[in-house]
């Protein structure tokens, strides 16, 4: 094996470990901190099913953002949908042809849309970047990391598009490398610059993820304003520490 390949095997394991451990740690933290009061933003659903529907509309259509500002919605939504499609296309690098999933991933429509998605992603990101730079209100609230995050993802998408349309990498070898990570049967990584740029940026993104605003991905499920059911009169909502407080001072007897 080449030294480069060994390095990237290690980096991949490291990045995956940081990503998984970091996100799991945050999820555990969010789950353990209590939500002592009913603070759903009303109108709010009266049932669990209603909450699921509320989340469905947010995740699939970004409906609150749509109500808020159409331009951010257009760029933000296109970016996220494109990300999803590109993700589906990339599964081809991680799934063996023997797998039952292979026929799904290999579909022409998944593969083609994955490519168009690459362009859409860049368009969306450029729109968001431009907004951050040129709208005074958004510029005011932006730290360097807010710009860099967009640049990072644009560079990942851009280098990916370059690899498909301009300078191909050895995708057979690449797939062997990736599958090798999963089966602990390590293979060489193609050494062309464009691929290394793309992969290194992806590794950076994975490592940064649990320390950045990308935590909105798990975090949004823990926002009491959206997941709580509107039934405070029907069902008494009491956090463990509040129950303890009551037991101690007996004022609710």
């Amino acid at each position: 094996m080449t030294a480069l390949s060994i390095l990237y095997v290690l980096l991949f394991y490291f990045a995956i470990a940081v990503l998984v451990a970091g996100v799991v740690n945050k999820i555990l933290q969010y789950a353990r901190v209590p939500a002592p009061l009913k603070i759903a933003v009303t109108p709010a659903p009266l049932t669990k099913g209603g909450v699921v529907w509320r989340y469905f509309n947010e995740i699939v259509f970004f409906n609150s953002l749509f109500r808020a500002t159409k331009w951010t919605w257009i760029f933000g939504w296109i970016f996220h949908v494109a990300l999803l499609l590109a993700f589906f296309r990339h599964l081809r690098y991680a799934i063996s042809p023997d797998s039952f999933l292979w026929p799904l991933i290999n579909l022409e429509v998944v593969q083609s849309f994955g490519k168009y998605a690459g362009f859409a992603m860049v368009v969306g990101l450029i729109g968001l970047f431009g907004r951050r730079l040129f709208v005074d209100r958004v510029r005011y609230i932006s730290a360097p990391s807010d710009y860099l995050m967009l640049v990072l993802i644009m560079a990942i998408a851009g280098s990916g598009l370059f690899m498909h349309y301009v300078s191909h990498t050895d995708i057979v070898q690449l797939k062997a490398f990736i599958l090798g990570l999963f089966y602990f049967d390590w293979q060489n990584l193609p050494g062309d610059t464009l691929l290394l740029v793309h992969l290194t940026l992806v590794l950076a993104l994975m490592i940064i993820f649990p320390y950045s605003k990308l935590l909105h991905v798990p975090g949004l499920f823990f926002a009491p304003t959206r997941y709580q059911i509107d039934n405070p009169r029907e069902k008494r909502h009491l956090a463990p520490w509040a129950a303890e407080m009551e037991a101690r001072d007996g004022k609710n007897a």
Partner: protein
Amino acid sequence: MADFEVPETREFPVIPTIMEGAMAHSSPYLAKEKFQQELGFPGDGQLIDGWKETFLNKLAEMLGKYRSLQVFMDICVKCGACTDKCHYFLGTADPKNMPVARQDLLRKVYRRYFTLPGKLFPKLVGAIDLTEEVIDDMYSYYHQCSECRRCSVFCPYGIDTAEVTMAARDILAHIGKGQKYSNEIIAKVHKIGNNLGLPEPALADTLEGLEEEVEEDIGVKVRYPLDEKGADILLVTPSADFFAEPHVDGLIGYGKVFHAAGVSWTISSKASEAANFGLFIGNYENMREISLRIREAAKELGVKRIIFGECGHAWRVAYNFLNTLAGPWDFLDPNYPVPQHILEFTSDCLDRGILNIDKSQNDHMTLTFHDSCNIARASRIGSFPGSQFTIPRKVIKAVCNNFYDMAPETIHDSTFCCGGGGGLLTDDLIELRIKGALPRMEALKNVIAENGVTHMAAICAICKSQFTKVLPYYGMTMDQIVSVHQLVSNAIILEGQGEEDEDEDETDEAA
């Protein structure tokens, strides 16, 4: 205080260009030692010794106690969807009044001391050190938020700046910086039972006076009982209802509705306050103490039901928190939700057809309705999502012939705060209150011009007080804000009402 200009109203709302520092001079009076101590806070307005460590320890404690705070610190992606949604930003153009920027006052400190990137590369991630300047900024701008939650409606994740404001105020109070206005009021409730410090004899006197006034007006003896044991219903209403205009006309209306429905009811001098300023300062312990008075009063008086009068944040606390803070309510009648809103009671009476109404009594007015923030975005009246919008309008339309809504993007859950809520209804913040009212004033002026609206109805004591003060600054008059139950009171015909007039007329004719 600096001289300021009342903002110009325009036909269409305009998102202002940011003006840094525009409201940096605005800051409410600090609470003196007495009014910190009585609430369990240290200090006297100056920073206590070891304030920095205390601040960070308290922040750590809050992050472990409130999921909302912890999550909201992490997940803001700076998309800017909220930036043009806050009435205080729209009215002042100060960028720190953009909800995300307001949260950032705390978030930047959180990042610095509680996150790895903030500890290692603060400038990269917008993390800052905690300094006295930062504290002053926080005290100023966390008292430029009325905790109305408008921002959370438009945030993709529902980040609620009010949660951050409440936490920040609580932390600031714990290092010596409490707000005079809210703290003094809470102290009065603990001591006497209501925000105004009205003791039992004064209350009894006021209610007697109301009874006389109503009897003289309509010739029917409507009762406004106090501390009556064994009554069915305990009415908990904002203390402003006892004497302020137009609030007191609402209280008169509740009494008439109870009278028509034939229920026995009472006010309690011990729990003579619906409002709960513990909410505004984000302090669970004080909020609970205030709520527990209602539990004690309900038990002592042996009532079966609890009904709240027209008050915004009071209803938020009552609807969402009363069960948590002062429950369980298993000693009350299980056939009724605990608590109920007076509008739920009146709406039910209308449904059952037991109120005799003459709509023409309100014909001299064309009404619109102001959805108060805590009713719209932080609670529910009635039994389905959004019935807090339909029930008040249904009641208004049942007693008035002329009604028009303001522009759709300014009502329902997009409603604009009156500008005086969240502990900001004090004269030391008058400039903020006037500027914050701008979006609502613009929407109101539009329906006045387009639909001939003459009056605006509301069901919140703070909104009513804020509007009576602020309407004249915008060229309108303070009597243009009315209570919903005032409209009901105008139109309701009680049994025996008007008979004295008829006798007088006959006597006049005979003479």
